[in-house]
């Protein structure tokens, strides 16, 4: 495996190996660039993954301490775990469920379409659907998304059968097994889906797309990638001209290393990315790197989520097979007559017994709770994924006193639900319950949001430098050779699972970097 020298200032440093960073690193290597890919977590594989929820959680999740504030229920239920995302090679693509949906045209112009919402810091993306469409197509091909490229949909499991029958009985029309980056046929050297039921725990069959075993080995095959796991980046450094020069990181032995760089791309997910920029403050950039707008860490979004569980007289065994086995898309539309703006998707979800007990009603105990848990085999469930409003006060900030083992301030994640978010969740809970009632549910349960898996918006794209952190290429307004390469770029959250858009933006960003380097602009 290739090793690039620490003092080689011709390399591109990519921080984070998930959907954004892992894809970007591969795309850059394919163009012939030398890439150093720094990943905070360890290197696992399909062989080391486990079909066991707590084991996998300990193995993959980002468990470094974080704090929370705000009126969201996650702050009460999981005060030190605002997000359920991963610290491992492949990042959260090891954990994601595979739903791969394009954002809709109107969602790129949220300010234009959703105007007049108090407290929402809405902005149009500096990007249109038409500009991103060619990259969506490339991403779908790369990831092998079902129902694109003549790839058949996945077969629906029992959980989907319940959703499908209920949803169609209440009149929903667009109900199917989704567009999933999970092989329904063998493809790209990976098997088809075994319906293991452990998508969240790392896919042991390799059918689910993850940068861990697609982008990263492809990048390594070019001889251009130097992947360094267990490398925690502490600071991005710059010169007197305000140009990024390299990154300081702690290696697996805790030794500090300085890697020089031509370009630095940050893809640490929407909590660590702004944290790193804020922790990289200097006399030139006293408020943090690339933060002349003051928007670094602001406008944190996490989707308006929640789950509806249905309990039935007969068995469902919803844990068998893909976790997101199907979708209802009819509510993912612009229709303010529902009492809120923005839309939401309904997607099946399943949890094993350990996590059902942990998440069905966090903190609950006693016979009322165990009576419900004893209905476990007869449960079906769906997850709400809805557009939440960007609010400036919802922010990732540096903790004033608590520090991590490297001596760096830990992040605090503040989130207050917006009135629009609450109205949407309330409506979606009722719609989800109606679906299950239509097929004879004896009981439906409104389950509060889990720790966030869709973390977005904390270094958002903006047309004007004063409104956000980066331009439509993810290039920061303030530091020309510093890029944001993950979901932090999202100007608004839209109703769709974000990974396909993150991958599309990464492919597009790689093209831009290649072009700008060719013109000697970078």
């Amino acid at each position: 495996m290739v090793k690039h020298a620490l003092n080689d200032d011709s390399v591109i440093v990519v921080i984070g190996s998930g959907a954004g960073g892992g894809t970007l690193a591969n795309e850059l290597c394919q163009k012939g660039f030398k890439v150093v890919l720094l990943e905070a977590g360890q290197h696992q594989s399909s062989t080391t993954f486990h079909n066991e929820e707590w084991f996998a959680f300990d193995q993959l999740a980002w468990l470094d301490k974080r704090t929370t504030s705000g009126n969201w229920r996650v702050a009460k239920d999981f005060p030190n775990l605002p997000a359920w995302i991963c610290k491992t090679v492949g990042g959260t693509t090891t954990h994601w469920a595979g739903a791969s949906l394009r954002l809709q045209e109107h969602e790129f112009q949220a300010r234009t379409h959703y105007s007049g919402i108090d407290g929402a810091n809405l902005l149009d993306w500096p990007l249109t659907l038409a500009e991103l469409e060619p990259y969506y197509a490339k991403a779908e091909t790369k990831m092998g998304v079902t129902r694109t490229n003549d790839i058949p949909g996945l077969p629906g499991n029992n959980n989907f059968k319940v959703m499908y029958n209920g949803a169609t009985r209440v009149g929903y029309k667009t109900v199917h097994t989704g567009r999933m980056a999970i092989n329904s046929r063998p493809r790209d050297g990976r098997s088809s889906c075994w319906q293991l039921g452990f998508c969240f725990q790392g896919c042991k069959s390799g059918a689910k797309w993850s940068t861990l075993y697609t982008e990263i080995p492809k990048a390594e095959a070019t001889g251009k990638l130097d992947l360094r796991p267990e490398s925690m980046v502490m600071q991005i450094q710059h010169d007197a001209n305000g140009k990024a020069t390299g990154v300081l990181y702690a290696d697996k032995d805790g030794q500090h290393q300085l890697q020089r760089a031509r370009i630095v791309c940050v893809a640490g997910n929407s909590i660590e990315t702004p944290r790193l920029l804020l922790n990289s403050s200097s006399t030139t950039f006293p408020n943090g790197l690339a933060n002349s707008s003051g928007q670094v860490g602001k406008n944190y979004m996490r989707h308006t989520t929640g789950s509806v569980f249905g309990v039935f007289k007969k068995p469902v065994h919803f844990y068998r097979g893909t976790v997101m086995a199907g979708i209802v898309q009819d509510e993912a539309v612009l229709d303010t007559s529902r009492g809120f703006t923005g839309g939401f998707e309904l997607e099946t979800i399943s949890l094993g017994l350990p996590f059902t007990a942990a998440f069905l009603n966090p903190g609950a105990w006693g016979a009322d709770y165990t009576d419900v848990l004893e209905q476990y085999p007869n449960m079906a469930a769906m997850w709400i994924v809805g557009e939440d409003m960007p609010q400036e006060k919802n922010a990732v900030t540096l903790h004033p006193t608590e520090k991590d083992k490297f001596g760096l301030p830990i992040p605090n994640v503040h989130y207050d639900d917006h009135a629009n978010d609450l109205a949407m969740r309330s409506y979606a809970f009722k719609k989800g319950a109606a679906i299950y009632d239509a097929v004879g549910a004896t009981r439906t349960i409104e389950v509060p949001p889990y720790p966030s898996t869709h973390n977005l918006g904390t270094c958002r794209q903006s047309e004007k430098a004063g409104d956000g952190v980066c331009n439509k290429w993810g290039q920061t307004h303030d530091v020309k050779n510093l890029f944001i390469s993950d979901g932090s770029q999202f100007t608004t959250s839209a109703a769709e699972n974000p990974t396909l858009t993150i991958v599309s933006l990464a492919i597009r960003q790689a093209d831009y970097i290649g072009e700008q380097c060719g013109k000697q602009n970078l």
Partner: protein
Amino acid sequence: MKRREFLKTGAMAVVGSAVAASGLVTTASGAEEAVPKFSTLKPAEAQTLLQVSRQIFPHRKLTDAPYWAVVSQLDIAAQADPSVATMLADGVAQLNSSQGSKFVDLNDQHKVEALKAIETTPFFQKVRGVELQTLYSDPAVFKAMGYQGASYAMGGYLHHGFNDLKWLPDPPQSASPKPA
């Protein structure tokens, strides 16, 4: 941070309570059972914690064995950290003094009332947190609750019932194609 800390309990990781549960003496009738030996917990404390854990997540269909496994994990935590040992001993003492008789002698309703009164304490949160992760990760509990768990060894659920539900019609193939 270990996973337990986000559940506000603060203990070492637990993987597979079946090991802890092995070697326990249980009887099918639920009659008198031997109290397993513990390193730090006293027998009376262990008996009380068993009854506490049976009230926190009560499942009549379960024998005491998986609940003893919870007490075993509490014992391990107490051995590793003296402050946990103190918290557990104090918590048991408080439960024994609150209702005029020992906790284990109370009827179910009074046991629940006694626990309700202390449900926000670190002691209760500790027991609940350890129990949540131990009880519902126990293969014997999986079986009793109808959860089949890991499927990799049998090649997944693809040929083991992932779409075997018959009490509703199958969706059309346009919505749900047949398996490859």
